[in-house]
């Protein structure tokens, strides 16, 4: 079991379920950051960067039990 806390950043969190900015998710077995998006029903285009353990990671990065994952939605360009 892999349990992670997901924080969503940016105004585009309105496109995440319930417009929430925090999700506590569980996965049976191995999971990647991309699996978070699948579980939440959110397209990859809505995530600009993932930060795991304070470091920027790509969507194929494997999750570890207890990870906090920050999903940066696209900021505006000005």
């Amino acid at each position, binding site marked *: 079991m892999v349990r992670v806390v997901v924080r969503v950043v940016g*105004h585009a*969190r309105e496109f995440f379920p319930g417009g929430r900015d925090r999700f506590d998710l569980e996965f049976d077995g191995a999971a990647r950051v991309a699996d978070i998006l699948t579980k939440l029903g959110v397209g990859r285009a809505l995530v600009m960067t993932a930060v795991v353990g304070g470091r920027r990671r790509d969507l194929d990065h494997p999750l570890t039990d207890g990870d906090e994952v920050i999903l940066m939605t696209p900021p505006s360009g000005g």
Partner: protein
Amino acid sequence: MASGKLYGYGGRILRVDLGTGAVRTEPTPESLAREYLGGRGFVAKILWDELPVGVEPFSAGNKVVIASGPMAGLFLPGSGKIEMGTKSPATGLYGEGNMGGHLAGELKFAGYDAVIIEGVSPKPCYVFIDDDRVEVRDASKYWGKGCFEAEKMLKEDLGEDFKVATIGPAGENLVVYAVVSHDFGRQVGRTGVGAVLGHMKVKAIAVRGSRGFEVADPAGVLKKGKEMYEACFAKPGFDEWTPYGTAGVTDWVNEICAFPTKNFQTGYYERHKAINGQTLKERICILDKGCTGCPIPCGKYSRFEFSGKTYYVEGPEYETIALMGGNLLLENIEDVAYVNYVADELGLDTISGGSVVAFTLECLEKGVLTPAEVGRELRWGDPEGVAWLLERIARREGIGDVLALGVKKAAERFGKGSERFAMHVKGLEVSGYESRYAPAMMLAYMTADIGAHHNRAWAITYDAAVGQDKTEGKAWKVIELQHIRPLFDALGLCRLQWVEIGFELSHYADMFPLVTGWEYSWEDLLKISERIWNLTRCFNKREKPDFGRVYDLPPLRWMEEPLPSGAGQGRCMPRDKAEKMLDEYYSLRGWDSNGLPTKGKLQELGLGFVLERLKLES
């Protein structure tokens, strides 16, 4: 609190008549403040009320309105935005831009909510404001200087505590995309406000204020402001977004095929990583630079070497990376920073300037222009060539004299099919989002009041959320954003805390009554924003009797040329689809089929006074 007292406001409107040198103040009308808030609302209403119909932008009848807002200059995040507006020389329509820095608060500290600059000075001047002491002073020693140089000189002459805004040679020479510059790197960039000041012979505005202004609940404002700052610091994106600022979005925009590349020929630039936010941070950024009250300073102040010299510039931020980076095929961040510096010192908008240079390069590529006509061989990816052309434009020399009019008019002069790649809507050059694979963003560009500017409705994440191929069902989102985002411009606030790190809008709604004492809900405030939106639409109709649907069409390139490559390959927006998007948009707005507000809509919004002027039918 006393009836009629305005809390959150400086309390006065300053009027400066350059023709006579006369200066007078009048109380800020409570009805204006209650119904239009400030900032963009004041600009729109004052221009509607005071400009003669059909006034020429470069004439003594035009005015420049500078307005702060009730939530500027306060202890709360993003409290530093000021608006400037005029009849635009670029479009002949409503013109307005905003900027951060420190002018918005300083103006209110001096006791003013707005400055209305009228007439034409007989010689170069600057407007000096030091609380109640207001003078039109001689600016001959500053005239001809770059924006930064003039600001530095004025601060040396007047004192560091003056907040100064300047125009550069581009404004002095009436380039229709000349900016007003402030704080060595902030600009009112769009629609040519700098050019109108140049026509007025106003080189600068210098403000110092010590009076302060009152808020309705000072303890409440302090408490809520502290809460707002702590909420910002606690946002998980706070540490992630700030290091890169707006430039951080560069890679993502390329991934969704929306990055202006080679005059919007495509939406993906292969060298985008060499000019993105990370590269900016690693190679040239030396410090973060922010505006009044900002906890997430988006300004990235940079030091870099170019041709053996050291330069400093605030930036490049995303729009410049797009329009002067990918759009010109510049290959590294130092090259982009250099042309950014050149444009800033000359006082040219990097968005329109980048678009004009790209248009010229494509004209050369397609044989519309020859190198002899341009005056030099120019090629894509050449920063020195870009700098050379920007100088020609700012000085109105050679081909620069026509290019100073913007891509729409330049294309009309050059002909030979160049209108097919003149990237503008309503005469204002498109900003940083190639939108053939982003229909909501395209609709935002089509319907923005000032022309193709993204700040009214940054709708591209909605495209990412619901599908980039979908064209139906997106108008409601564009309209929602067109009410929320410009509301910040009426309040005197920066929206980046909300947009970039997801700061909740409810904070601003809670703060507003503490500042003003008015129990306006967020919905009340959005209604005012909708009122302003409809007013500027009517201003455009008033100034151009044929104004309507045809002004809302996208650039020909977007209607006729499918994207050749990338994730959006094959997409474009044929005219019939663009018109269908407009049908949906107009219907939701309560406008008629030509895109004009109906009588019912105007009355609903308290804009009945517009009806007489426009004689609109229901």
